């Protein structure tokens, strides 16, 4: 089935009576009345889905993964071993492949209603109007629910989203995470594609940080050939909670990350770090929406992009400060380097501020590799190629230095500094 054939096949995909879940019924309705988004819609203006439109996806990726292949993945890919590894194969939780621990529980549940704060706030960017959220809801039908227990000791969890299929496949991972009061977790979403066929992964994830919870969160999309992903991630923060979100995208064909963040009570903090590197014809889209709903919250974004070859980068950072959200601090920086005349970046800050006692700023800058710096390095005997690598590494390093999970950061760092050839 192709993307634009979904609408006419809805009755086949979803039979009335499959579920009484109101959420799913709403989503079926949405899909009946809306088409796959195109470039006429502002939120998809630069993110062309046309490369995906032609692919005939199966909705039923059958390939089974066994424990053996998991073990192999753990050896091959840079995955921190002192963590709890939760493999999710083609969107389905692989049971019994990890050890129980009293700090968390995990189960399959009916899809939970969206958090009320995530609904309808920003009129255009709300997930309520996101085609792929609804598509995920209809196709996933159940969700993986991860609960981090209150007052528990710090925990490190890697969710391994593995795709493997012998045919072009559309997969719909659905994960909900709740960090209960006073919990403290490092959680990474790590994508691994073993498939040689095309994979379209359409993830929806809602993460709730209860009072005083601390989350250090990672989304790692690295070296994913034949892989296109749409990741809608909603994060809802309650009072005194702290989030650090870190994203790294490299060598991946098509990525649409849409991170929506809601400060629903006072004294929340969120630091968002992102590094994206496009090669060949990669398209990397980072959309961010931060809603400062209550006073005294702090958000700070630093996203950096390196666009090589004919890759395309998109950064769209919306910050909405509600009338009541006094004493808000909201800062945003996006910097990009284009290393080729064919590479493109579309960057747009969107600040909407309805409170008067706030500190908000944004800065966007895009350029090429600095000729003066390049010449300086070469004049010391460093080859042009190595000099460029050194400068790009330097450009990336201040984002990477903010990644606090060393076992995640180090392989990325060595990846980036790889092959300074001497």
């Amino acid at each position, binding site marked *: 089935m192709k993307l634009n054939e979904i609408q006419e096949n809805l009755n086949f995909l979803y039979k009335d009576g499959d579920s009484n879940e109101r959420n799913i019924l709403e989503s079926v309705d949405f899909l009946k009345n809306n088409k796959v988004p195109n470039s006429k819609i502002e939120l998809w203006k630069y993110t062309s889905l046309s490369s995906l439109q032609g692919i005939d996806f199966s909705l039923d990726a059958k390939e089974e993964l066994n424990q053996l292949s998991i073990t192999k993945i753990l050896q091959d890919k840079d995955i921190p071993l002192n963590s709890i590894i939760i493999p999710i194969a083609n969107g389905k939780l692989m049971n019994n492949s990890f050890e129980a621990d009293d700090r968390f529980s995990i189960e399959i549940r009916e899809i939970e209603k969206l958090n009320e704060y995530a609904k309808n706030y920003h009129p255009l960017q709300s997930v309520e109007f996101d085609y792929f959220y609804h598509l995920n809801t209809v196709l996933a039908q159940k969700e993986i629910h991860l609960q981090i227990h209150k007052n528990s000791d710090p925990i490190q969890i890697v969710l391994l989203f593995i795709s493997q299929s012998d045919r072009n496949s559309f997969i719909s991972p659905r994960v909900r995470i709740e960090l209960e009061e006073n919990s403290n977790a490092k959680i990474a979403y790590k994508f691994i594609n073993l498939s040689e066929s095309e994979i379209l992964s359409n993830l929806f994830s809602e993460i709730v940080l209860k009072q005083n919870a601390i989350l250090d969160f990672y989304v790692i999309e690295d070296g994913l050939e034949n892989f296109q992903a749409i990741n809608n991630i909603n994060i809802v923060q309650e009072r005194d909670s702290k989030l650090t979100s870190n994203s790294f995208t490299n060598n991946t064909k098509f990525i649409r990350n849409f991170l929506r963040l809601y400060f629903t009570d006072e004294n929340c903090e969120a630091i968002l770090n992102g590094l994206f590197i496009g090669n060949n014809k990669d398209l990397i889209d980072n959309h961010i929406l931060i809603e400062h709903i209550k006073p005294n919250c702090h958000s700070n974004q630093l996203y950096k992009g390196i666009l090589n070859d004919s890759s395309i980068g998109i950064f769209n950072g919306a910050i909405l400060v509600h009338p009541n959200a006094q004493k808000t601090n909201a800062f945003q920086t996006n910097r990009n380097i284009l290393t080729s005349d064919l590479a493109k970046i579309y960057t747009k800050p969107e600040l909407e501020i309805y409170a008067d006692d706030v500190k908000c700023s944004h800065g966007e800058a895009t350029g090429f590799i*600095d000729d*003066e*710096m390049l*010449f*300086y*390095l*070469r*004049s*010391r*005997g*460093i*080859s*042009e190629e*190595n*000099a460029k690598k*050194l*400068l790009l*590494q*330097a*450009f990336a*390093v*201040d984002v990477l230095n903010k990644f606090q999970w060393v076992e995640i950061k180090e392989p990325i760092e060595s990846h980036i500094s790889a092959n*300074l050839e*001497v």
Partner: protein
Amino acid sequence: MSLLKITNLKANIENKEILNGINLEINSGEIHAIMGPNGSGKTTLASVLTGKKEFQVTDGTVEFDGKNLLEMPPEERARLGLFLAFQYPVEIPGVSNANFLRLALNEKRKYNGLDPIEPAAFFKIMREKAKIAKIEQDFLTRGVNEGFSGGEKKRNEIFQMAILEPKLAILDETDSGLDIDALKIVAEGVNAMRDPSRSFLIITHYQRLLDYIVPDFVHVLFNGRIVLSGTKELALELEEKGYDWIKEEFATA
């Protein structure tokens, strides 16, 4: 033995002729100074010799250590033993001095058929050479020139020169913007590096630096040509009389 031989060198930037037939020969172990008023082409000469791409060579040849210098990319010139101490060293945040210099040294060693130097051995060399340029330890781990004062940047150039041990070092107005103490440190660094197998080309506007680095030869550059050559006494004469008489005497040349 001739190390550098410049013959009838002409160069343009944006179709404007800056170098207008330079002839200069430097032998191993010699120190040459090039003086001249602003806009005479001093910095252009340094840029052309090191291979800055904005400048087009329209005529002439440059032989360095028996090789055709103008054919080579900047990095190859450096590996052969050419070094430029920049007038305005660029800041490169995020690239540490140590990493950058180890890479530079190892690329040079590889070019010359030597094995790369291990980090521990390299740090030993760095500590030694840091003394020559009177550089603090924390200098080494900081970003290249990042947040350095003018004097620190110039000392860092001398430090890099000490690490890379060039055959010919060009100092492009290294004295500009330095107070007398910083000037002395730079001069002492250069003097510590003097060696029968190493030559220097010192580009300066003022004679002051030449009190501390005594040249074997002094040349006056004007309108893209060397119009006068002599010994260190020529520098003193220029200091005394200024450049106006040069302008008058050679304006039509």
